[in-house]
């Protein structure tokens, strides 16, 4: 399943012809503007199950497209360094070709063979001038010396220490030259047993040493210092016998079977996409023959197959169980089905064996309109893009219609047998994460609370009274270690309410927090329906006379709640207290942030000038009066006073 990547549609027969034609269009884009849909067509071609040679063809195309800066609103561009053990030059093009599927336009820099540490530490290294956004560390047990048994527990620990220390030194050497995340791969264990089953007991066996090395990487990633790419897990999932290919290692020092380059590259690319905030957010489920066997409209409540006692019924339960597990980790669930609404809802309300209940579903679209229109409606209701949706449907015709109408919705192919639905969905890794915060855990609840708030609004009518009825408490505070991961996530994910769309890695964010010349604050909002968590982030550069707002972003969940006015009141008070006379705000237009075009004028800023598309606004603090809001504001930065800020810096 993983090896063939069967959640993807098979490559078109004329792939070579299509790839060449697209490449020619990309090359021509240097002289004249390309067709508007060229980016989408490239993405569509990449969104097939491709072999390693087809990926190389796409990597060549991507290399040219990077130069022309093609379709920046569709593809997130980045420069990736690939370093480490074995032959890396086969990995890099597979990653760059695959990346287009994940809406990344990757230009790679390939490290020298087995020379990562040297390249990381050498002051004259080309790595330092390369302008890397991210780096990938590839490790191999055979190069780390973890494939040879150690004589004692002490010798085994020393070998693991040495291997990990070298990896760590390489990463720390690279870190100043890498703007964002550093990805570190785990290592698959050697296949050949030494003691047999006793290898697991024996600390000096290669199996035990590799396990201990991988655990070190996991602990490291838990600290937030690196992002883990679990290649050991991938190798175990496809099977070590399939993964490990001694012939290729001996001939070319390629660490695994080249047949697995495509799925390996997909795992790497989806991790990079997750770092860039491009993971999916919502799972949309069809009903008939996707969540239960049979057709509810024809077969009725007693006729559909779901639940224990039949193999088919259990297969559909497994799909529901997976949906619930995803929901528990923050993935929002929605329904999109061609059915009478009353029929569609009946099993959720009345069928004793259903695990999914109406409570779990944020948006329920059951009608006879086409599914693309319903998916659009789901995205609108949740205030997310259709590119955040995954649509699970057993019907190939529906899948094709959705792919045509909404090419950015992820629509996995499904095998005939429902027993494999859950596994196929999981294998695609649509919801891969690089961190897991309290907000993630509670996100699905928050989206549902939102739906209830919308209902409350339509019942009340008067906005002021409605806002007052929400019992809002807005908390403004500096960013501590606990909140940092969530703040980084917001900074890298927010597209719509984001004035400058400036991205910060967690490390860059930590640096900004420490910088005494910058003010980084998080804003949280609790109301009577629940805790919305962190809903705004502000970063300001503190000048003597003026404070410049570098970053202002808010979660769209709290639009219309006057939180932005609370944010401004905070910034104005802090700037004034430090002796500044004005605030400067900028609007940098992107493909997605048109909604905040007039953000500053609405708040009373005057337009100063325009610079290369960026509009610059100014607010004189002398004439600014903080408004009265329908919420309690708990500004902990002011309460704590200057002492706390200094201590914080």
């Amino acid at each position, binding site marked *: 399943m993983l090896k063939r990547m069967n959640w993807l549609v098979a490559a078109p027969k004329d792939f*070579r012809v299509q790839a060449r034609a697209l490449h020619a269009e990309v090359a021509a884009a240097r002289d004249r503007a390309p067709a508007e849909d060229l980016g989408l067509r490239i993405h569509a071609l990449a969104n097939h199950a491709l072999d*390693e040679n087809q990926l190389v063809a796409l990597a060549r195309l991507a290399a040219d497209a990077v130069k022309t800066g093609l379709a920046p609103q569709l593809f997130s561009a980045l420069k990736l360094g690939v370093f480490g053990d074995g032959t890396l030059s*086969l990995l890099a093009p597979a990653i760059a070709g695959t990346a287009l599927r994940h809406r990344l336009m990757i230009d790679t820099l390939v490290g020298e063979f087995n020379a990562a540490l040297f390249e990381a530490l050498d002051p004259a290294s080309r790595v330092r001038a390369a302008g890397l956004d991210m780096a990938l560390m590839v490790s191999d047990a055979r190069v780390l010396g973890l494939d040879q048994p150690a004589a004692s527990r002490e010798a085994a620990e020393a070998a693991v220490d040495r291997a990990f220390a070298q990896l760590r030194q390489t990463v720390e050497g690279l870190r100043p030259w890498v703007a964002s995340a550093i990805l570190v791969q785990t290592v698959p264990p050697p296949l050949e047993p030494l003691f047999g089953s006793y290898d697991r007991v024996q600390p000096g066996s290669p199996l035990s040493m590799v396990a201990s090395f991988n655990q070190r990487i996991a602990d490291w990633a838990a600290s937030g210092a690196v992002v883990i790419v679990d290649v050991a897990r991938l190798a175990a999932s496809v099977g070590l016998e399939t993964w490990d290919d001694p*012939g290729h290692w001996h001939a*070319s020092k390629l660490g695994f079977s080249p047949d697995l380059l495509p799925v390996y590259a997909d795992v790497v690319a989806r991790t990079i996409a997750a770092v860039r905030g491009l993971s999916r957010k919502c799972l949309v489920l069809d009903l008939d023959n996707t969540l239960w066997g049979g057709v509810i409209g024809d077969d009725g409540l007693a006729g559909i197959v779901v639940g224990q006692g039949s193999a088919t019924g259990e297969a559909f339960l497994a799909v529901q169980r997976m949906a619930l597990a995803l929901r528990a980790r923050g993935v929002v669930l929605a329904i999109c089905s061609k059915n009478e609404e009353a029929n569609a809802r009946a099993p959720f309300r009345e069928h004793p064996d259903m695990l999914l209940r109406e409570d779990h579903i944020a948006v329920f679209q059951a009608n006879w309109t086409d599914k693309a229109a319903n998916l659009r409606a789901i995205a609108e209701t949740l205030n997310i893009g259709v590119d955040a949706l995954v649509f699970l449907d057993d019907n190939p015709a529906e899948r094709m219609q959705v792919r045509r109408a909404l090419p950015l919705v992820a629509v996995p192919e499904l095998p005939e047998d429902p027993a494999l639905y859950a596994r196929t969905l999981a294998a695609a890794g649509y919801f891969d994460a690089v961190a897991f915060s309290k907000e993630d855990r509670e996100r699905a609840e928050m989206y549902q609370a939102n739906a209830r708030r919308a209902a409350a609004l339509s019942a009340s009518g008067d906005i002021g009274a409605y806002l007052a009825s929400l019992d809002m408490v807005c908390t403004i505070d500096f960013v501590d270690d606990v909140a940092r991961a969530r703040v980084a996530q917001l900074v890298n994910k927010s597209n719509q309410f984001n004035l400058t769309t400036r991205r910060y890695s967690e490390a860059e964010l930590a640096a900004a927090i420490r910088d005494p010349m910058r003010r980084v604050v998080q804003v949280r909002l609790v109301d009577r329906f629940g805790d919305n968590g962190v809903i705004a982030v502000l970063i300001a550069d503190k000048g003597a006379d003026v404070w410049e707002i570098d970053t202002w972003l808010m979660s769209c969940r709290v639009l219309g709640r006057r939180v932005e006015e609370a944010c401004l009141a905070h910034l104005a008070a802090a700037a004034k207290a430090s002796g500044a006379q004005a605030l400067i705000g900028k609007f940098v237009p992107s493909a997605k942030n048109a909604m905040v075009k007039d953000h500053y004028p609405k708040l009373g800023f005057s337009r100063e000038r325009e610079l290369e598309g960026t509009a610059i606004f100014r607010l004189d603090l002398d004439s600014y009066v903080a408004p009265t809001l329908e919420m309690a504001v708990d500004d902990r930065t002011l309460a704590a006073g200057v002492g706390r800020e200094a201590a914080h810096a």
Partner: protein
Amino acid sequence: MRREEILVEIRDVMADVLGIDADAEDVTEATTASDIEEWDSLSHIRLLVAIERKFKLRSRFTNSEIESLKRVGDLVTLIEKKTSA
């Protein structure tokens, strides 16, 4: 499979793997890696993997077989041997 048929299939694989036009005049049995710019040691690995897949070879190329390949004709001979076995 006749040698000429094998050669036609090899040209097709080369077009995919090397991203070149591999017509009859470009690739003959006498062609060597030094004749084709895109055919370097890395694309050579991909080429052999793609050929194993294309001809559905039951046994993989061994390292000594790979090292014995000097020209496209050697590759044809090897495939002939492996497909008739």
